């Protein structure tokens, strides 16, 4: 199971939960599992074409997935993924 850390702005859609866990082989699967199980969250992460919104930063551990394989970055059991709200283009 991979763990996803939910940022505060999205916790309204997760009943306040800050951690989400699911079986997923890559980052996209984990994000899809999140929005499939929580109504209203999809549009905040993905655009109308189904692409992860360009300003959203997702990290696997301390690494930006854009430096890896993007949403196709593979996940292993106990991996920790986090979504970071953008602040002036800053990073984790």
């Amino acid at each position, binding site marked *: 199971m991979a763990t996803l850390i939910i940022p*505060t702005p*999205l916790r*309204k859609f997760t009943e306040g939960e800050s951690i989400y866990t699911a079986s997923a082989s890559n980052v996209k699967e984990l994000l899809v599992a999140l929005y499939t199980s929580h109504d209203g969250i999809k549009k905040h992460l993905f655009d109308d074409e189904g692409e992860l919104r360009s300003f959203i930063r997702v990290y696997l551990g301390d690494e930006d997935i854009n430096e890896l394989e993007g949403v196709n970055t593979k996940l292993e059991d106990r991996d920790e993924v986090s979504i970071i709200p953008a602040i002036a283009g800053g990073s984790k």
Partner: protein
Amino acid sequence: MTAPLLDPRLQALEELRWHVGNSPMHAMLRLSPKPGVEIHAKLEWQQFGGSVKARPAFNIIHDAVVSGALRGKRLLDASSGNTGIAYAIFAAAAGIPMTLCLPENASKERKHILKALGVDLILTSPYEGTDGAQGVTRDLVRKDPGKYCYVDQYGNEANWKAHYYGTGLEIWHETAGRVTHFIAGLGTTGTFMGTGRRLKELNPNIKLIALQPETALHGLEGWKHLETARVPEIYDAGVPDEMRFMDTESSYEMMKRAAREEGLVLSPSSAANLAAAVKLAEEIDEGVIVTVLADDATKYSEVINHVFGKSGARI
């Protein structure tokens, strides 16, 4: 020559007052889509601190010194950067010690500037944005109330009053009273509350249009998605005549257009204001639309790389 004042901090602040407000009003000659509709924007980065936040930061610190609230205490607030930098400039010049709670994911430029100005920086959770930073400031005050003067830009009346006595009047005079629409994004909401209230008093027919990010996660630095964020205490839902929602992608497109067509390299939130103003201009046949461009792109190097890098624009 400024008259001598008893408090040297006030004397220092009075010397800086002339670097606050009275920002240039820029006419968007190429972006205005119709001859009968004018679009004007206040270039707010041309003040100390490089952003619109010079106005509220100055007023908040000035009030805190005059009221005695800062006596023997450190200035404390939460900020995603611009207000913090503006506070830090005035605090450094006036000899006021300062602590700032800043989300850890704020850009490197902001952290470097704040450190250079001598700010005691407390980095807060990158997952919680400024809402989380506000929570940390409250904890600090609770634990040590004698140490800090928490000025709380989100709940401080001096925030919106800076715009009521400044920005609103400036817009009125600079348009010779012809302004018909004021359109701007909501962050602390101080700009909109103060400017909107003043313009409405001067002419009740002026339409006030507030903007929010369309999504909970967004790249419009400084703006708040009120549905999922902590609503600032100074916000009054009765002030806007209309609420519109902007997406980050549209602001990135406007960053490109503003750079190429108006010579303005804007921050994402400034570009969102301008994009909304242009859209409004397309909907009406005549009018004078005014917006506020909070800052330029100077402190957004990673966004510039993202927006202009792919387009191949030479900047």
